[in-house]
């Protein structure tokens, strides 16, 4: 075998960082982490290709169990900040099925569907990663600060934004691109016509990663984006089994694939 880049090293220690303060119950917006792990994104997916490098962040800052970035299967479960009750129930069912197969659930810790995805993962005894649109020491929305602390202690939070970076509106579509990059597949549970979630969907399609849209989304005749995304390669999710087929469950690592 000639050419190519040297293999990325395994994600090095420290693989876990602790918060300076015990998990608080307050809604404080500012969360002071004790130690952050800086990660080269190349190490996360086992090497980025030219398409992925175009929009990949230079660094990821992490707090929590960094080994989750090496999990065999990671699925983003994302959707509207104004989640409907049926939407939350669908998240619970979907996450339950994924956790049962050992899939790590990734979401953006936004209000609504994202929060439900993290909470339901914890409820089902699974592992979850929050990809933040803020630096690690800030929570957005502030009401999610306790959940963010818990994820940093027991699961993982990552961000491309260094401490001190302002929380701008433009952070969130950039965050969504990063989330698509970190996941083997993405699922949109529900989203309006102008939802920020859609930027993640388009990024997954650009990367040729599987993108699933729940069947229920298509029942809203006012939405045009679901049909449009289908034209560009998204799939209608009828059953979690479709997702399992799209994930590298039980397959050898990429470094062993050359023949």
């Amino acid at each position, binding site marked *: *075998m*000639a*050419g*190519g*880049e*040297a*293999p*990325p090293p395994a994600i090095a220690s420290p693989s876990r960082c602790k918060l300076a303060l015990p998990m608080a119950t307050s809604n404080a917006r500012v969360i002071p982490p004790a130690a952050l792990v800086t990660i080269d994104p190349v190490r996360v*997916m*086992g*090497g*980025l*290709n*030219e*398409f992925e490098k*175009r929009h990949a962040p230079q660094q990821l800052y992490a707090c929590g169990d960094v080994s989750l970035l090496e999990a065999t299967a990671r699925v983003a479960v994302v959707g509207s900040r104004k989640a409907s009750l049926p939407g939350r129930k669908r998240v619970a069912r979907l996450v339950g099925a994924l956790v049962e197969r050992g899939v790590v659930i990734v979401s953006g810790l936004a209000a609504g569907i994202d929060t439900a995805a993290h909470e339901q993962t914890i409820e089902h005894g699974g592992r979850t990663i929050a990809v933040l649109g803020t630096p690690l020491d800030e929570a957005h929305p502030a009401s999610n600060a306790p959940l963010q602390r818990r994820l940093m202690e027991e699961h993982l939070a990552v961000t491309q934004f260094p401490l001190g970076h302002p929380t701008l509106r433009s952070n969130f579509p950039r965050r969504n691109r990063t989330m698509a990059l970190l996941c083997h597949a993405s699922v949109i549970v529900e989203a309006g016509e102008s939802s920020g979630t859609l930027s993640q969907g*388009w990024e997954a*399609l*650009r*990367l*040729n*990663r599987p993108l699933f849209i729940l069947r229920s989304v298509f029942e809203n005749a006012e939405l045009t984006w679901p049909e449009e995304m*289908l*034209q*560009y*390669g998204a*799939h209608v999710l009828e059953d979690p089994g479709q997702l399992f087929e799209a994930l*590298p469950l*039980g*397959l*050898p690592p*990429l*470094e*062993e*694939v*050359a*023949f």
Partner: protein
Amino acid sequence: MLSELRFGSFLVYAPRGMNETSRKAQQFVRALKEERPIGIPRQSPSDYAARRLADELSASPLQDLFRVDPLLVPVPRSSLSVEGGIWPAFNIATALVRNGIGAGVLPCLTRVNAVPKSAFAAAGTRPRPVDHYDSIEGTRMVTDRPMLCLIDDVITKGATLLGAATRLQQTFPQATVVAFALVRTLGFVDDIESIVDPAVGTVTLRGDEAVREP
């Protein structure tokens, strides 16, 4: 529609296979679709496979397919393309040319309407050759090459290649059109013993369906 198309393929995979080689092939196909680097050191799966083919071409049945240095025409994806997105067939075509196979890449076919992916579609709902033909447009470009070789990542029954080949032949009536898919699906085989299994065969139109041999 063309009634017959000559095609070649270099690798095989069994989507439902369970042994180590089958699993490795399944992961390779996944990597190919996402252009995910493989092996140690990390390398593009398209480049890796193209280099392996170039190394083995002189003793391979595929030699005849590339003997006259055809222009390589990547088959459009089954869906519409996101700007700046990954196009596996184009990646394979450019990797082949980088490794001395083919005279150049001619991306002259475009998908104008999405069709269901063959690999995901249930039997009976898979797009037929005519569906691919109707959803692909060809752009006439100047070339003096007598042979054009369609390039795709995976061949299942051959409907995509037959539809695309018909459109390509219509766009370039004077040229001889052949096809190459890097990977040949073995849908009815439980397991494979080797990923490398070069073969040359035909895709034939039978009724409105494509039939691949081998």
